[in-house]
């Protein structure tokens, strides 16, 4: 038997409360499976975001026992048995209801970086595209789940901080411009509430379900911004 303690709130509620549920789950069940089972069998009103079920769409990000995770990517069996699994919405975002967050804030930042969703594929090694395909393509690693923004200690206190996902996207565009001018994203990174606000807590990289490593990306773009600044200084002098 899997026990869940799920944060609940409707639009207009000032403070959430927790509801307890118990469901029978199989050995391979994920926290998302358990939540959907609750919605199907016990409480139709549970508001939960989900779509792909395989860590590709990024919609089911929540905090599980206080840690940012994709609900579809967290096996019930991997969590400590004997106490209820605590499920809360991501931090620092507006709430739709219950454990579903409104991603408008996240996407406003993310969109500012303007990263095209498709990149050049790096694997498998030695693959030669056929005539008619210039380079094999693949979707970017970032699945826009917002876990990094929720886990970031700076974003929690400074609402204006552009945050790890957007800066990692900016760094990707500098790494692989795909015909674009990286100037605007470098300017974005050089803004006051951008790379210089990061405190190197590395929480973003710790919670990223897609191995994007926003912390390293941020360091990379920060070095670039710094180098550009020094160059400008000398040019002026």
């Amino acid at each position: 038997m899997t026990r869940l303690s799920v944060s609940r709130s409707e639009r207009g509620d000032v403070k959430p409360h927790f509801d307890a549920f118990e469901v029978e789950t199989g050995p391979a069940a994920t926290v998302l499976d358990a939540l959907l089972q609750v919605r199907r069998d016990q409480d139709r009103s549970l508001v939960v975001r989900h779509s792909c079920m395989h860590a590709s769409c990024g919609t089911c990000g929540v905090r599980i026992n206080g840690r940012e995770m994709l609900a579809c990517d967290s096996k019930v069996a991997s969590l400590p048995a004997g106490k209820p699994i605590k499920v809360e919405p991501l931090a620092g975002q507006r709430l739709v209801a219950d454990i579903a967050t409104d991603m408008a804030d996240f996407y406003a930042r993310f969109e500012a970086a303007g990263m095209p969703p498709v990149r050049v594929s790096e694997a498998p090694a030695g693959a030669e595209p056929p005539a008619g395909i210039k380079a094999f393509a693949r979707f970017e690693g970032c699945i826009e789940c917002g876990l990094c923004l929720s886990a970031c200690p700076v974003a929690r206190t400074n609402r204006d901080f552009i945050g790890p996902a957007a800066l990692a996207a900016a760094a990707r565009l500098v790494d692989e411009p795909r015909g674009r001018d990286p100037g605007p994203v470098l300017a974005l990174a050089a803004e006051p509430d951008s790379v210089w606000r990061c405190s190197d807590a590395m929480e973003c990289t710790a919670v990223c379900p897609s191995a994007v490593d926003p912390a390293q990306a941020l360091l990379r773009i920060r070095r670039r911004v710094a180098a550009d600044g020094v160059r400008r200084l000398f040019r002026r002098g």
Partner: protein
Amino acid sequence: MPKQVGPLDRKPDAKAKKPAGAKPSRSGGRARETAKPAAEKPAAERASSSAALPARSAPTADAAPTPGLPARSAPHVLIIGGGGTGGALAHDLALRGLRVTLVERGEVTSGSTGRHHGLLHSGARYATTDRPTAIECSAENKILRRICPGSFEENDGLYVALTDEDAAYADLFLEAAWQCAVPAKRIERDAALRMEPGLNPDLKFAVQVPDATMDAMRMPLRFFATARSHGAQIKPFTEVMAVTMSGRTVTGVTVRDHAAGREYEIGADIVINAAGPWAGRVAALAGATVPLVLTAGLMVAVRGRHCNTVVSRLRAPDDGDIVVPQRASTIAGTSSWIVEDPDDMGVPPDRVETIVGDGAMLVPALAGAEIRATWTAVRPLVGEGPAGARRKGAKNGRRVGVGVGAGAVAAAGAAAGATPDGREIGRGMRCIDHAHDAAPTEGFVTIVGGKATTLRAMAEATADVVCARLGLDCRCGTADYVLLPHTAWYTA
């Protein structure tokens, strides 16, 4: 991100859309029989809104519609179901100038849409068994690449022959593909291995086709975003509790907004049931039935990108015949078995092993890769529905893609309970105007069947039926309308 959003500059590329050996229109050569009876009963009878529409509602191919908000007097269409079909339909109807409201019980794309493996069909898969679907996929594949730039990994697909039996199937396969306007070509073993070093080196040869991988959520989100920019109201977490009726005429729905914890009614001139596998339940709320057979497709995602092209087995459609790369993962699929409950989330462990094993026949690295996720998606296939609810031929609606080859046989077989896996049921769509049911229901239309690849065509067919029923003369503008990026769904 697309450089241009909105109507494309019209280039005379009709040639590209007209495959040799077949005469599909954009709608895949479907019969238009439902339009006629609908025209005989104009919407005026239903005491609804005016049949006149704002200027942009009658776009021609030469003058694509200019977006704006619908007129207050425009008819109001309510769509139940926020999957790809519902989203594409909201976009289509909004572009034609109608007022649109879409309700979805969960997040948009949270049903079958988001869960599929992401194959943008070239059409080759169905060329030998379900020709109308193959032709439609081929046409829609090109259209979607044009209106959703940036939403696909455009790396083509390889059908791999591993056995003598596979090799013997090749001629039939190639011929059928060409007949359906799918540009398929045979490539030799070494060329295939240069393209895909991770292929099973024992392959005999391969057939290259223009498959691609789509982002199963973000591509449909672009339809939702664009629909909303044209005034469509999209309401996630809003579940239909009842269909309101006046006699045998549907007048709207009662919904529960789970996020706000309140119930309310929404009136509509026409209600469209686009609930996918849940379409039978929604129809039941209106006292109608839908010829639906649900089959579960099992998929397994493993870590690591082990190929770039979509790799399929060169044989008739079967379990474990496809490997789809997606981002940094690789997905093996699928299996098929008939299910009763669309909310059934069961994943039989023995089938997982089989699917991975079958995938590893094509791309051996799958065998040793770490499994990231296992899940099922439920396909809402057009069958003959629950026993006793069998319909009489195409009279009840537009019947598409079930009429050729295995499809027709399968539909009959399903009703007799003779199909344990539902694999041979056609993948065609069916748009049903329930006014033509044996026990008619007015103002209620259902769209079922189809593929993720054909979402736009399904929307076009349904919107045509809706407009005919409302007595409106307005044409579809979606085939040449570049959609907003998916991020606009959140930020606009």
